[in-house]
């Protein structure tokens, strides 16, 4: 894998009534990051998948939110996905990862990077096809350090969108791992740090 070394970040801007950051990386890669906010995606959950990790974790103060949308061109095709999660602290001593699973027939997400550029048909929701990959990506990123940073609570993936052409299990696994890292951040991290996290977890 080659390292990506040039980034451009647009100033924070408003999308709908939510704040998000546009990040453009090398190789025509585009990302949108939401911290302490979310893309306001609503879909019907047909199932809830849960996994537990950690024990004896302390409760940290305050809910957290993070979301990542990414479009990675690779020539003949592109890779696309969007995931967002919230972390709700509690006294359980462990982290419970929850995934809201949808059908494949949810509404179009016309605000997506891929839709706006007429590359793909993007729908809100997380079909079952990708649910195990989201779990795997989240658990992979929930190492002892991340668990300690987050503390005890519920990590719920409740924001998602997928592309008919661009999505894959691999991209959702990578986005899930990245979102966990974004949640473990303090929200005052700068964009260079955000970019490094996206690079480290999404392009490998």
């Amino acid at each position, binding site marked *: 894998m*080659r390292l990506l070394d040039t980034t451009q970040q647009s100033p924070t801007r408003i999308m709908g009534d939510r704040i998000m950051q546009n990040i453009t990386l090398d*190789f025509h890669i585009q990302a949108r990051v939401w911290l302490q906010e979310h893309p306001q995606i609503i879909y019907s959950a047909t199932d809830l998948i849960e996994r537990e990790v950690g024990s004896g974790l302390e409760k940290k103060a305050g809910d957290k939110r993070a979301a990542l949308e990414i479009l990675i*061109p*690779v*020539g003949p095709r592109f890779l696309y996905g969007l995931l967002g999660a919230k972390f709700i602290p509690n006294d359980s001593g462990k982290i419970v990862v929850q995934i809201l699973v949808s059908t494949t027939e949810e509404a179009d997400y016309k605000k997506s990077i891929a839709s706006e550029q007429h*590359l793909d048909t993007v729908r809100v929701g997380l079909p079952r096809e990708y649910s195990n990959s989201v779990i795997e990506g989240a658990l992979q990123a929930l190492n002892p350090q991340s668990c300690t940073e987050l503390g005890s609570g519920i990590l719920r993936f409740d924001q998602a969108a997928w592309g008919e052409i661009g999505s*894959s299990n*691999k991209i959702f696994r990578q986005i899930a791992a990245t979102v966990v890292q974004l949640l473990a951040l303090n929200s005052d991290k700068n964009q260079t740090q955000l970019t490094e996290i996206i690079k480290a977890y999404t392009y490998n």
Partner: protein
Amino acid sequence: MFGKLNQQEFAINLEKLEVIKNHIKNNFYDYKPNLMMLDRLQIALDNNQKISGADASFYFHELREAELMKSGLSYHQAHQQSLQEYEVSPFSVYHPDVIRAYPDEFNQNWKNYWGIT
């Protein structure tokens, strides 16, 4: 399925294959299905074999995309225009053997398109 490329065979040109390799290397991160498609084209060239189907779709798509991006079009514009000019499906650009080799990289729509179970 393969639009203007349907039911045709094409010879690979060495210089054009180099254009495609450089385009992919310089513009995109290392994506293993691309490397496998390039290997398929190189083997066909080395053995003086003609290409068709997904191999031809990949070859002509990337060649045209390279030309258009060199002329100043963005990736998104060049990618879309290349698909439209050859009237090929966006799912036609990877050979089913590549999809089988990297199942994690391709969703069910790709597998349905190629009849991969």
